[in-house]
């Protein structure tokens, strides 16, 4: 239903807070000594609707940048087209130093699988603030005990899995497993993690791939079980997840992490890029950042500037071999 667009307006207003006068975001200036200072409000585009992981990270980053710079960072949800709408909007803000976008895997996966006007290099990457992986989860009553049980069953017959979009993280994960093991899953498309959870609890799908933050409540209650973590390493930092083996341990050599961070419009000035990256780095030193990372069961892996450029280039290549056409 389209009502979710209303949340967009709402949350953008929410980030502003009450009683603040919003001016139209105008261009910040680069002063004579080459440093950048924003003038007026900056905006943080979230290309997904309110309530999901991208929204949470966009709002956390916006709050962090606000605290670090003293500038209002207005969160605007511009959802639609599995994220394509938000990125396309940023594309139209070429050269703007104050429009940021809460980005993740979709930056690379959308151009690889959809007919859009941008590629992963159309924008100015600013900061990666953390990494997130997924767990393969099943209902408590499921006969599957390990991830290799799942692939074996898929090879012998059919296993129904949930995916939340043509370019979503869970689609990527299942595609990688299919490529690695040579099996094929039957997919049922959903539109959000919450819906996938409903389908899984109701037994309409057998397996789903979800971020730990999305399922930890159901794991603790015993309604769902995690079979394996599709990650490089176990979640040793989080006691409640530490017992979950990785897919590799179970004989499926697949690991895929989702990065979270933010990017600026293409053609952003180097001064502005440094300014926002510094602000992000300052935020990652705060307790609020730690709280954000731990409550979402993420890994505090960061990257800025050229380091991030290199990371993204490699990431893009990895994705292209996984899901490219």
């Amino acid at each position, binding site marked *: 239903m389209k*009502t979710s667009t*209303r*949340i967009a307006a*709402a949350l953008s*207003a929410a980030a502003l807070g009450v009683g603040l006068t919003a001016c139209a975001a105008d261009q910040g200036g680069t002063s004579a000594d080459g440093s950048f200072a924003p003038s007026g409000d900056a905006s943080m585009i979230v290309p997904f609707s309110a309530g999901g992981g991208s929204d949470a990270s966009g709002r956390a980053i916006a709050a962090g940048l606000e605290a670090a710079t003293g500038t209002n960072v207005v969160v605007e949800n511009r*959802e639609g087209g599995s994220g394509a709408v938000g990125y396309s909007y940023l594309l139209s803000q070429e050269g703007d130093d104050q429009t940021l976008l809460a980005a993740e895997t979709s930056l690379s996966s959308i151009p690889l699988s959809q007919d859009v006007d941008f590629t992963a290099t159309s924008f100015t990457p600013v900061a990666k603030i953390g990494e997130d992986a997924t767990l393969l989860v099943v209902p408590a009553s499921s006969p599957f005990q390990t991830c290799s049980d799942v692939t074996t069953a898929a090879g012998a017959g059919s296993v129904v899995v949930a995916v939340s979009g043509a370019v979503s993280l869970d689609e990527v994960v299942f595609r990688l497993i299919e490529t690695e093991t040579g099996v094929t899953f039957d997919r049922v498309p959903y*539109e959000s993690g919450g819906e996938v959870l409903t389908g899984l*609890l109701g037994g309409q799908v057998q397996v789903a791939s979800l971020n730990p933050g999305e399922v*930890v409540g159901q794991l603790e209650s015993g309604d769902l079980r995690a079979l394996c973590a599709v990650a490089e390493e176990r979640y040793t930092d989080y006691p409640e997840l530490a017992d979950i083996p990785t897919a590799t341990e179970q004989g499926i050599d697949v690991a895929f992490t989702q990065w979270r961070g933010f990017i600026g419009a293409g053609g952003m000035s180097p001064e502005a890029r440094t300014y926002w990256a510094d602000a992000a780095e300052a935020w990652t030193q705060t307790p609020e950042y730690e709280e954000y990372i731990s409550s979402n069961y993420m890994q505090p892996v960061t990257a800025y500037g050229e380091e991030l450029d290199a990371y993204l280039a490699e990431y893009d290549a990895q994705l292209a071999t996984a899901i490219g056409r």
Partner: protein
Amino acid sequence: MIDNLLLGFEAALSWQNLGWCFVGVLLGTVIGLMPGLGSTTGVAILLPLTLAMDPLTALIMLAGIYYGAQYGGTITSVLISTPGEAASVVTTIDGYQMARNGRAGAALAIAAIGSFVAAILSLALLIALAPPFARWALNFGPPENLALMVLGLATIVSFSGGSLARGLAMACLGLLLGTVGVAIGTGEARYTFGSVDLLSGIPFVEVMIGLFALGEVLHQVRQGAEAPIRARFRDLVIKGSELRRSVAPVLRGSGLGFLLGVLPGSGSTLASFIAYGVEKRVSPRKAEFGKGAIEGVAAPESANNAAANANFIPTLALGIPGGATTAVLLGAFTIYGLQPGPLLFEEQPRLVWGLLVSFFIGNLMLLVLNLPLAPAFAQMLRIPYGYLYPIILITSCVGAFSISNNVFSIWIVLAAGAAGFVMKQYDLPMAPLVLGLVLGPLFEKALVQTSAIGNGDLTVVFASPIAVTVLVLAGLLAFGPQLWGLVRRRSGRSGGQGGPGGPSAGAPAPTPAGVA
């Protein structure tokens, strides 16, 4: 359970909580009065206000906003034919006619009373049976949802006005508009003509503002302005006879709303449409529907409020959002450091029961606040139309803009307004269009998922007893009167479309349905 209730009352009944609950209800009502701003927006906008509060206080205030905003939307639906959100579209049909007949106060009062009764009934069910209901709701997978959407679409028959073919044509147009944007599953962009703005689909709220608010303004300008309504104050107070007529519709609406609200995703819009459709079928006064029947306000308003309450069942018991607003509330849980999920009832009993009790308090406040205020709000119609319609134009456009901070929204309003005007001029019914637009994407999702489950075979629907039951109900809702007529003719009595259908209340009666 009594212990839990006592715990809830103890937690909720502090001066601080009561105060914030009141503030929430009041702010919510104000937000609901703005076209385009509904409960979802209200909750999301005011979320930051609550960050510094104790989680229970914060949630109580947000729940107050939720209910307040819904009621605010009802007020504008009745007075100026501008629904605040999808769930109050149906209310405009008879509510606005009541206002034009000088019964705005009664319409607003029955909406408040119906909502209150619905809230109390659904709350009792929620408190007693939340976990089992939540488990039951999980049985609704794609095939069951598909059947449910068919039931929703079957109500088109009730919304088609004089000609069923026209109603069906408009519903198809709505379904078609609903397919604009990225397709579920395959991710294909449909009918977007290269426009980025259209990728996310035709925005529903803007269309509604255009069709109803702007369309009505243009229609009235063309038809000749309405005189300001100069009903006397005591005419605005609800009559005893109106209250008596509303008892059964309120109860039926509450029950339907509750059942549909428990199901994640379908929510209060479907509930309000189905409640109206059912009411029109079973009412002994079905000829008055569309011309200001109080039942046409009482039933959908009770249904959408009951659904709004029932929406909390999957939210609290399973950690699954029941609708858009509860999704935002669920997000709020994490902000307050609470982990939503099946364990919430056990781990946070004070919070959960306090919240449930506060729903009761919030609805009581809403009733106390709005019963005396309903006639006062109705005085708004005394504003001469020469001032009123330009003001409606401004608030419609500013409301539309604020949905996504995009002028594109205003253009959608203008386009939908022109369409709404034409539809009014040529007697094309709007409700089926809205129904198609709202249910279309949900219908398609269920269709795609069902066929994915059945590997292309849609007959898996018939393997589900729940789905079959729902489909039978849909058939009865759509063709019940014709079947009934057939049965009566068979049994030797001349049925048909003779006199005004006057069988005993509650029995389906032959309806002159345009196309036999």
